[in-house]
């Protein structure tokens, strides 16, 4: 088999535990890589532009899980700020799917991520991070607030806990498999 990369996106609002989840399951300490962006409408096509004020960098962190000698899974956390949608597109392209982390103290911060994956029909699971043990909402209340489709799995997790993060990844891959076209439709 050819050396193969697969991706899972870890998304959610600012401070919802994305980096913590990546770190708890990755076989390497999470790494950070940067992309250079330029303000829309400003044409920069030369290295001389890199110093200019019209450019900015966006950092994203990621981890790695070796699945087999040929297959490596990369977990990419989305950048915290919503304005870097361009990076989301690159992360989501070809991904198995996404885990959308939800902080029950600020449900609304994960709404943009839910909406992003819904619109593109990318499989995702909502993962409610238990920051303070007891959750003040029922599953139905969270589903309602985030406008989750009935088929979207909702899991509870502690992103600091390896087996809990692993269970969320397993739920996502199972969900992605359930959405594969039937063999007869291929």
């Amino acid at each position, binding site marked *: 088999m*050819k*050396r*193969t*990369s*697969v*991706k899972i996106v870890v998304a959610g609002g600012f401070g919802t535990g994305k980096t913590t989840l990546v770190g708890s399951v990755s076989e390497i300490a999470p*790494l950070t*890589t*940067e*992309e*250079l*962006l*330029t*303000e*829309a409408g400003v044409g*920069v*096509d030369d*290295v001389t*532009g*890199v110093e200019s004020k019209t*450019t*900015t*960098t*966006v950092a994203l962190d*990621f981890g*790695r*899980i*070796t*699945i*087999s000698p040929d*297959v*490596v*899974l*990369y977990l*990419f956390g989305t950048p915290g700020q*919503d*304005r*870097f*949608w*361009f990076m989301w*597109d*690159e992360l*989501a*392209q*070809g*991904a198995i799917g996404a885990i959308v982390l939800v902080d029950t103290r600020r449900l609304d911060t994960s709404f*943009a991520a839910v909406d*992003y994956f819904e*619109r*593109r*029909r990318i499989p995702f699971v909502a993962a409610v991070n238990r920051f303070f043990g007891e959750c003040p909402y029922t599953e139905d209340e969270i589903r309602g607030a985030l406008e989750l489709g009935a088929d979207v799995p909702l899991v509870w997790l502690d992103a600091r806990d*390896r087996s809990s993060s*692993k269970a969320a*990844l*397993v739920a996502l*891959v*199972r969900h*992605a*498999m359930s959405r594969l*076209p039937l063999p007869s439709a291929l």
Partner: protein
Amino acid sequence: MIDGWDGDDETATGGFLPLYILVNGRTTPRNSSLDLATQVIAIAADVRRLEPEYLQILDRCKDWISIAEIGAYLHTPLTIVKVMVDVLLEQGYLDSGSPAQQKVIDPGLLGAVLAGLERL
């Protein structure tokens, strides 16, 4: 472009665009299937003609490594790593694996990922 999405989405740009950078006369990889998760590996070759920036990348590629990891270890933005890796691929210094860019619709691959995760 992601399957099933028509690109008509008010959240698409958010005011920022990728910055294209000129490396060896090119601003984007010719091989557009290069993804930040694509893995590459060095091929034995005479590297004496290569500039230090390229040698630095090759040094990291003795074993399979992704574009994102190269960028992280060398503190180089992804756009630049992609274009330079593309040059090295084209000139036969690197080999690449599957790009992780097509939608995964291979049940065998998903099954392998599931089994791998359950073993963790």
